[in-house]
């Protein structure tokens, strides 16, 4: 709802008073933790204690602040000044600067920019397109609230929509609102969420299940993790509202074991919500009850596929099964089951709060709302961004990401991870929406966006993703189990310069075979990165060929 720069600036008291308080929001998400954010926060807390400033300077952990590639990050309120590359060694100096500011006697002094700078880092200009071009709906609380305290979420309205829903809305009204909003699944396929909810709601069955898919397996993607780490109550509330709408009483969050912090934050959030009777039996004095359990997956990519995920929740081997029956009909323990992605569920609260029309006004004809992307690769400003659907790739990559470093020039943008494809620089004006990306042979995917410059070898990219699919194939069906190995072998042959025209022909023949005959989405989309690089960068394959038998001579 707010742009990030607005979100970063909390209201500034116009003049200082002896009770004025400052707050340091330290990013405590996995990206910054890896860079030493925990030590930084400890250092800050210790420095505040040494100066006996506990009453005037609050040190809080928050979720991802956005430009993760420059971490560790922190923001200072009331003005929302953002600093990057801050280390524990900077802690004392920062607190000294804040102490100085707190002694301000005039409004001018209080509002003057902070003179302090981190030794090896910098102040981040929140007037840059990276911030101003964002539109935060899913991430509206992320980076602002302390995910460890339910009070912080409640102050920002958490569980208000659940209360409203349970006390004043019928399930049919909720389903209808979601349908009219135009929300589509953010887990990759873009299935209309309202339609899915309506289907599960219509299924007969005493007991139904809501599953939040937090398996997030695409390499380089961390949108869902950021939401779960930074604003876990948002997802729990979305699940509870979904449960009310479809008539479910039991919920599971299927999350990969690697997401340690998200797991800790979710466990704590579930416990806090349960204690406050925001989850559990008889919510808000109604007969509606809903419980949520975590199921920690062992990090197999295929377990993000809904039928494999269901098997895994049931304690079976995580392999897909043919659909139909769809989970809506027979899911966890045969019960009608609604499966939605984390980001899909995180959109539910703002839709109910602001109305379906408000949401539908954001985005394009077929793709409503915003999408969170993880901008990574050869880009100056990488990190977590949320933009309205319909924003062009050029805006995201060249304007917000500020293009490729080292002036190497942009070559392509990869979306959809191992199930997606590349968009060449010449098509960067393409709008980010489900249909446009599909027309180019890629997919919206869950939100990974990898920028590639001219030093990138597209055959190597195709081989990388095929190696991923080969490793992650569950092995149940032949075309994927053996086909990904054969495709990977062919790609390696190309990389080694040993491939002939016949090998290229075989590569091109095998791709549709694997795509059309595999049992689940993994095998069905595994050839996409190959097909996409063949479509736009065929010359890179051809240039490597060595003379040899032609396709016809090889019997293809």
């Amino acid at each position, binding site marked *: 709802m707010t742009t990030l720069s607005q979100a970063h600036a909390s209201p500034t008291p116009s003049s200082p008073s002896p009770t004025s308080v400052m707050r340091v929001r330290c990013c405590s998400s996995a990206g910054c933790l890896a860079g030493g954010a925990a030590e930084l926060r400890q250092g800050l807390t210790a420095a505040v204690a040494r100066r006996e400033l506990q009453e005037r300077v609050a040190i809080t952990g928050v979720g991802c602040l956005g430009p993760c590639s420059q971490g560790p990050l922190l923001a200072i309120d009331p003005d929302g000044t953002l600093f990057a590359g801050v280390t524990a060694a900077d802690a004392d100096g920062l607190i000294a600067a804040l102490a100085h500011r707190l002694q301000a006697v005039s409004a001018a002094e209080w509002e003057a920019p902070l003179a302090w700078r981190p030794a090896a880092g910098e102040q981040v200009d929140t007037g840059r397109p990276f911030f101003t071009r964002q539109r935060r709906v899913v991430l509206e609380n992320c980076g602002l609230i302390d995910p460890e305290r339910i009070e912080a979420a409640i102050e920002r309205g958490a569980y208000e929509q659940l209360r409203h829903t349970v006390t004043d809305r019928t399930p049919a009204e909720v389903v209808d609102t979601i349908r009219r909003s135009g929300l589509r699944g953010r887990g990759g396929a873009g299935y209309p969420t309202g339609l899915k909810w309506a289907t599960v709601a219509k299924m007969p069955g005493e007991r139904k299940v809501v599953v939040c898919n937090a398996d997030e397996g695409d390499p380089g993607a961390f949108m869902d993790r950021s939401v779960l780490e930074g604003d876990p109550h948002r997802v729990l509330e979305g699940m509870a509202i979904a449960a009310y709408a479809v008539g479910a009483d039991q919920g599971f969050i299927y999350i990969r074991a690697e997401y340690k912090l998200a797991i800790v934050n979710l466990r704590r959030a579930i416990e806090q919500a349960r204690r406050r009777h925001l989850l559990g039996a008889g919510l808000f004095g109604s007969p509606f009850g809903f419980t949520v359990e975590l199921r920690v997956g062992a990090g197999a990519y295929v377990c993000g596929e809904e039928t494999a995920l269901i098997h895994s929740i049931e304690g079976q081997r995580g392999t897909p099964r043919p659909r139909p029956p769809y989970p809506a009909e027979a899911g966890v323990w045969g019960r009608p089951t609604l499966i939605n992605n984390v980001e899909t569920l995180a959109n539910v609260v703002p839709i109910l709060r602001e109305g379906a029309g408000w949401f539908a006004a954001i985005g394009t004809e077929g793709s409503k709302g915003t999408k969170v992307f993880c901008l990574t690769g050869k880009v100056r400003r990488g990190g977590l961004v949320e933009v309205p659907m319909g924003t062009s790739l050029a805006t995201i990559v060249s304007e917000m990401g500020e293009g490729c470093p080292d002036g190497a020039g942009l070559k392509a943008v990869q979306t959809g991870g191992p199930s997606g494809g590349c968009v060449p620089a010449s098509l960067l004006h393409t709008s980010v929406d489900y249909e446009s990306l599909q027309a180019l042979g890629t997919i919206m995917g869950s939100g990974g966006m990898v920028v590639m410059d001219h030093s990138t070898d597209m055959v190597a990219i195709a081989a990388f993703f095929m190696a991923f699919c080969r490793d992650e194939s569950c092995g149940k069906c032949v075309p994927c189990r053996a086909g990904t*190995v054969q495709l990977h072998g062919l790609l390696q042959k190309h990389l080694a310069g040993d491939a002939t025209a016949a090998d290229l022909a075989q590569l091109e*023949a095998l791709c549709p075979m694997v795509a059309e005959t595999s049992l689940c989405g993994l095998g069905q989309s595994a050839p996409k990165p190959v097909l996409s690089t063949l479509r736009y960068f065929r010359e890179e394959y051809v240039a490597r060929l060595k003379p040899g038998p032609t396709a016809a001579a090889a019997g293809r």
Partner: protein
Amino acid sequence: MSVRTLSINGHAVAMATGTTLLAAAREVGVPIPTLCHLEGLSPVAACRLCLVEIEGSGKLQPACLTPVAEGMVVHTDTPRLQDYRRTVIEMLFTEGNHVCAICVANGHCELQDRAVEVGMDHSRLPYRHPDRPVDLSHPLFGLDHNRCILCTRCVRVCDEVEGAHVWDVGWRGEHCRIIAGLNEPWGAVDACTDCGKCVQVCPTGALFDKADTTGEKHADPARLGALVRARARGQQTR
């Protein structure tokens, strides 16, 4: 019993609701190659040999699992399907080590039969020559992983019909193997009743009777269907 009418390769067919396309096609004499399917066991649709084209459906559908529907127009033998089936068989041959000349099932092997049916005279894909073990720890039977095509018939028959659940699939992707017990030597798994059902349903020479030598395995998987039907009728069977 309600009936659905449909067309399979131009033949008009009327079939009871719930019948699979595979059964419907066989009824009218249209052959569809299968490997993982076996009447009497739960369907897994894993080998993808039986995929057929259904007009109006963007995706190929497994005949062994897809029920007949009113007005369906099915094609089972288009050039695209022929090519894909041959490729599936080539993938199976190249991912294992199938040396037919010295195999117990030579001449009575479903994989061989399918290869002949799909016209695979040679493999267009390179052989991978994986390093796979042989388990001869069971007193009566042997398991040669080199010949296993991971159809999971043995897993299903032992679990669903014999009730012993000796077999499972271990690991994933290209590393998948049939495992006995908790990945133990077959002979060390007490749950095995030595019934031999897994050997009977195995389509290849992967599971075999130790008494058999080259070309001597004559498995009869179709007997399983008879057994399951007899049980369903309450007739005494082992």
